[in-house]
């Protein structure tokens, strides 16, 4: 007999409800994998006399809920739902049972069932979200995080719910993630490089809601985004799902926007050391017809005038001496705003929305790449506008879902570097320029201005052939066109042409098809897909100032890639997974055509490729009704081919193709509820990335050496404590985070540098307290509490200890 019920309840229960598993499921964190699997296999088998209750637990949008607890009322017997929301409860004897279903962030539901020997009952359950408050956002998010992390891909989903009240930006939060290392060269607004499993720079692709973020401009940047602008961040460390539809070498970030269901206004402002101010305003309003309007905006400003250890020269002897001086020309300002209007669950669209926005940046340039020469005048700015439209609709039976997205962005970057003086680190004019003009680009003043216009389109078709089989087709096309001018820049000798005025373009089209299927009672997930990468670019090689004639250089290519991923749920507490992808990354527009400042063009650049293999195991454990824990171990192996890297010779600095690298690594992630109010999380990463083939025969002696400028060992730890309700709707939260990065080489062995060739190890502690009173929260934080000297990138010095005060206000209308 098979009984199918769908029951919906509404009542409030904000407690976390879990249960203790029977003994066979109790796993040791340090247990051997094979022992664990063998130990647990019997639990997968059921006798004929057993009664089985199973079903799927979803939210109101039919999204599966993982980790929901299904428990016999008053007894310590139960189970939890898997990553697809399915649960199975096996009972030894027939009878009438009262069953409670609960999940974090949802209201608990109870139902009764009468089962007889050999019955197989299906109960599908829809849970209703509990009324959210500022403090409960984290709870709601946790189930989504678990759902994603339990997928077949190597993925870390970072919920931002509780972190939004901290002063951390997105970059700081990411830096606490296993396998992820964020490297920001100086203060607010300085360049940020993200390293995921050894991949860094352009090898990492950024998305927002599955669409590449380029059209949003540089104002939408992980170091500028406040944490409360997003729902979560998905960190992909290997295979990218077809739905992302972009090229990447094995690493990507997907910023997932908030999906507010209530009318809310969120405001925040932060004041921090060195004249730093950061604000955000997010608004979500909807009417009864499901029309909605959303505002996302944030503002950043800092003078970045923190002290650094530098050298100045004696005016007479011209010898150098060490001093500590405040940075004096590093003011940064950025602003970003986006407004979106649309309708959800309308008659003719599941979702239709249009949006428009702006992004602007003003940035003083303080010093040369290695902080050896101070600048006093050079600056850059960017102004951009963008807009997008989205349409999504599903068939009545929800088997077919179509989503179309289009975006247009236009961003103008200007460089002002016309100083005729040389500044020292005291901000004084040391001397008048002689042979050279300008500060940044040796020998060339610059008033360069170029505009990049980007058109992006994405179409996704999702078709569910059967409950266990799904096909996804995705196509993303982008076209970038760049044109500019520099009235004082270099000219092509023969006809005095400003090379920036010659348009440069890049067209990419990436399409993919994926088959996703479930097997073995949906305990096995298998997905595989193919991707096609097409690109075409055109432009001149304006880095060569000696050319006398030119024709635009055109380049194109068409490549294929493939991926496959598998995940097996051994039991609700043990999951193993593996994935492989033959990936391609098409060089970006600024890699091909330079940045108009430091980097020159190379229109003949070709894509990078890589083989990526990831395996992982995750063990969840429930220690008590309020104590959860998990341990996740992931390992990767990667071969990178046709690498793009910056090569410099006497007359040019440009990207070229060449070397090959092999990378291996592993990361361990641990979470543990020490008590129901005190939690610990930590992770440790080791990665070994070595040169496999040199790009020149003269570099063959470096083969086998660790590739420099990539951290190879780092770990994070964190403790959070949340008080009881001190008085009505008032809570106190304390947190401490620690980040350690082992020292690593900045250059290959023997490379010449005026600097020590090592980035020293760093150990940074961040400490803070948040007071939450109803809709208000106030956070006081100190970053780098022990004032450690921290260096990044080309040994640029980061700020020491900083103080932060942040106020958040959320109003539910």
């Amino acid at each position: 007999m098979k009984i199918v019920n769908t029951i919906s309840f509404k009542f409030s229960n904000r407690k976390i409800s879990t249960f203790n598993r029977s003994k066979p499921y109790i796993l040791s964190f340090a247990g051997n994998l094979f022992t664990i699997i063998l130990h647990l296999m019997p639990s997968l088998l059921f006798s004929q006399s057993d009664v089985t209750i199973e079903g799927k637990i979803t939210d109101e949008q039919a999204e599966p809920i993982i980790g929901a607890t299904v428990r016999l009322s008053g007894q310590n017997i139960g189970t939890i739902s898997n990553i697809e929301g399915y649960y199975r409860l096996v009972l030894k004897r027939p009878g009438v049972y009262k069953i409670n279903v609960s999940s974090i962030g949802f209201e608990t539901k109870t139902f009764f069932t009468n089962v007889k020997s050999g019955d197989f009952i299906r109960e599908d359950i829809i849970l209703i979200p509990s009324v959210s408050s500022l403090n409960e956002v984290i709870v709601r998010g946790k189930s989504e995080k678990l759902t994603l992390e339990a997928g077949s891909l190597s993925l870390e989903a970072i919920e931002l719910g509780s972190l939004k009240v901290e002063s951390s930006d997105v970059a700081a939060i990411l830096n606490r993630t296993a396998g992820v290392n964020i490297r920001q060269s100086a203060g607010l607004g300085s360049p940020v490089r993200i390293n995921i499993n050894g991949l860094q720079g352009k090898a990492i692709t950024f998305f927002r809601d599955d669409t590449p973020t380029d059209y949003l401009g540089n104002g939408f940047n992980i170091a500028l985004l406040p944490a409360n602008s997003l729902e979560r961040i998905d960190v992909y460390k290997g295979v990218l799902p077809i739905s992302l539809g972009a090229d990447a070498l094995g690493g990507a970030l997907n910023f997932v926007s908030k999906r507010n269901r209530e009318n809310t206004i969120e405001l925040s402002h932060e004041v921090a050391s060195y004249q730093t101010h950061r604000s955000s305003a997010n608004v979500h309003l909807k009417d009864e017809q499901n029309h909605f309007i959303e505002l996302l905006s944030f503002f950043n400003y800092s003078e970045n005038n923190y002290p650094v250890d530098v050298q100045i020269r004696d005016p007479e002897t011209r010898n150098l001496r060490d001093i500590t001086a405040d940075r004096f020309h590093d003011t940064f300002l950025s602003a970003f705003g986006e407004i979106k209007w649309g309708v959800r669950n309308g008659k003719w669209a599941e979702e239709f929305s249009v949006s428009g926005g702006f992004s602007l940046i003003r940035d003083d340039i303080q010093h040369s790449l290695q902080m050896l020469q101070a600048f006093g005048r050079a600056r850059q700015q960017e102004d951009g506008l963008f807009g997008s439209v989205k349409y999504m609709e599903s068939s009545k039976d929800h088997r077919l879902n179509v989503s179309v997205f289009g975006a247009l962005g236009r961003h103008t970057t200007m460089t002002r570097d016309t100083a005729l003086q040389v500044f020292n680190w005291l901000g004084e004019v040391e001397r008048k320029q002689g042979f050279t003009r300008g500060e940044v680009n040796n020998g060339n003043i610059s008033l360069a201005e170029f505009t990049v216009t980007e058109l992006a389109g994405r179409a996704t078709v999702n078709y569910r052939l059967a409950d266990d089989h799904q096909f996804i087709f995705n196509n993303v096309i982008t076209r970038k066109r760049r044109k500019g001018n520099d009235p004082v820049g270099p000219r092509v000798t023969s006809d005095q042409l400003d090379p920036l005025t010659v348009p440069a373009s890049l067209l990419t089209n990436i399409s993919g098809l994926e088959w996703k299927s479930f097997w073995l009672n949906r305990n096995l997930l298998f997905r595989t897909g193919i991707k096609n990468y097409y690109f075409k670019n055109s432009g001149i090689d304006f880095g060569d100032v000696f050319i006398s004639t030119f024709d635009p250089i055109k380049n194109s290519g068409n490549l294929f890639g493939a991926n496959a991923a598998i995940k097996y749920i051994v039991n609700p507490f043990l999951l193993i997974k593996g994935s492989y992808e033959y990936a391609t990354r098409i060089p970006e527009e600024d890699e091909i055509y330079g940045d108009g400042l430091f980097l020159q063009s190379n229109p003949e650049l070709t894509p990078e490729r890589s083989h990526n293999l990831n395996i992982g195991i995750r063990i969840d454990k429930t220690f008590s009704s309020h104590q959860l824990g998990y341990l996740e171990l992931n390992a990767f192996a990667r071969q990178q081919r046709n690498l793009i890297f910056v090569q410099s010779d006497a007359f040019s600095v440009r990207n070229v193709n060449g070397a090959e690298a092999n990378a291996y690594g592993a990361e361990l992630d641990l979470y543990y509820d020490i008590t129901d109010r005190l939690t610990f999380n930590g992770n440790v990463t080791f990665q070994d990335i070595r040169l496999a083939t040199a790009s020149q025969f003269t570099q063959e002696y470096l083969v086998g050496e660790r590739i420099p400028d990539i951290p190879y060992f780092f770990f994070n730890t964190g403790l959070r404590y949340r008080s009881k309700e001190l008085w009505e709707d008032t809570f106190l939260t304390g947190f401490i985070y620690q980040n350690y990065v082992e020292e690593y080489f900045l250059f290959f062995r023997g490379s010449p540098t005026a600097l020590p060739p090592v980035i020293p190890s760093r150990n940074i502690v961040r400490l803070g307290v948040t007071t939450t009173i109803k809709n208000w929260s106030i956070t006081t934080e100190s970053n780098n509490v022990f004032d450690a000297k921290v260096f990044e990138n080309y040994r640029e010095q980061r700020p020491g200890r900083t103080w932060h005060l942040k106020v958040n206000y959320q109003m539910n209308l």
Partner: protein
Amino acid sequence: MNLKRKGLVQLVLFTVTLITFIHCEDDDGDIAGPSEPNASFPYVLMTQTPGEQIGGYLTAFDSLPSGDIDPTIRFNTETVTSSQGMVTYSSSIYARDFEGNDGVLRYDIAEDGFISMQGFIDGGQRMKVHVVSETKGYYADLEQFNIQIFNPQTMERTGEVDMESARQGGQDVQQVLYMISRDGKLFAGFTAGPAAFSTFRDSAFLAVIDIETDELEAVRIKDGASFLGDFWIRTNPFVIDQNNDIYMTALGDPFGGENNGGLNGEGRLSKVLRIRSGETDFDATYEWDIANELGRPSIMRSLFIASNGSAYTCLLTEDLQTPELFSQPAYHFFELDLANQTGQQITGLPLTAGFGTATLLEIDNRVLFPIVNEDIEFNGYYFKDLGTQQTGVQFKLSAGGRPRSFVVLD
């Protein structure tokens, strides 16, 4: 090294990568040299690291290297931020530092072969150095027109030569390009133009400075030639022959001048000029357009004169544009008779890559030629025996990049 004193002096004179011509003055006889004399590791090699703009390795040998050499694993190898060449004086090396703070570094080589940095003077781009005694040297860079005076012993700037009276009317940018000294006079080629890296006037400019007083004595102008000297410290554009005559190469307008056909155009005004012994002005009877007369598209940038009086240079075989102009092995070495303005290609030497090649030197009656040729996977030095006229491989760099400079210390 059992060479006669005269030969030894010549070796030092002609093996430095910069134009430094060591003018041995016996003043300040009771002042010690910049470092303790070193005879144990006199052979010093500078290479350019692959993939680096100008950085490289510096290592010293106790005997003339031969066979395969790997500077990256030698016990005494140091990295240098500029492999633009070396200037030697006594047992010290003066080289340019590049990363960020451009300037002059002094390296000493101890008896045990270890190389140590002894001082640094902060300066500007494209620094040139010329040491005239143990306590006096000159440097110039492209940030200032005045030639700076320094003490090589203490590595401190001590003053400057006022070059204001050498300014050419209407020219906004003037820089000293190269220096050489003879008979108490410092000869400094300089250029004058409206802007950096722009068209230069069609004349070569030479400042004559009295070393005793550090005063500018005269400015010599040679029309029909341009850009007296070179951008780089590693080339050797000024030399002194056995007759005590100075030969100077005028590079010519490095950008070909307006409508002159670019880098290898005819209007470059690249010439070899001469200043006779005892004179301080150009020899009006001497002017050699060497590249055009030998049928080569390239200008000539460096010179070397061996102990037998023969001069050497390298010239391009075909008209190339950047980046091939610098990276492609397309240069042949030539043997020259400077006085009679004749030359012929040397057989038995492979082609070498362009302006990045190090300067030549003579050791044990062999002239050593730097060869950089990826086609045959060779970085190193070939030799030509001045007696037998045979050529062959002196040593090959199995790692560490391409040779940039090779000198023998006094």
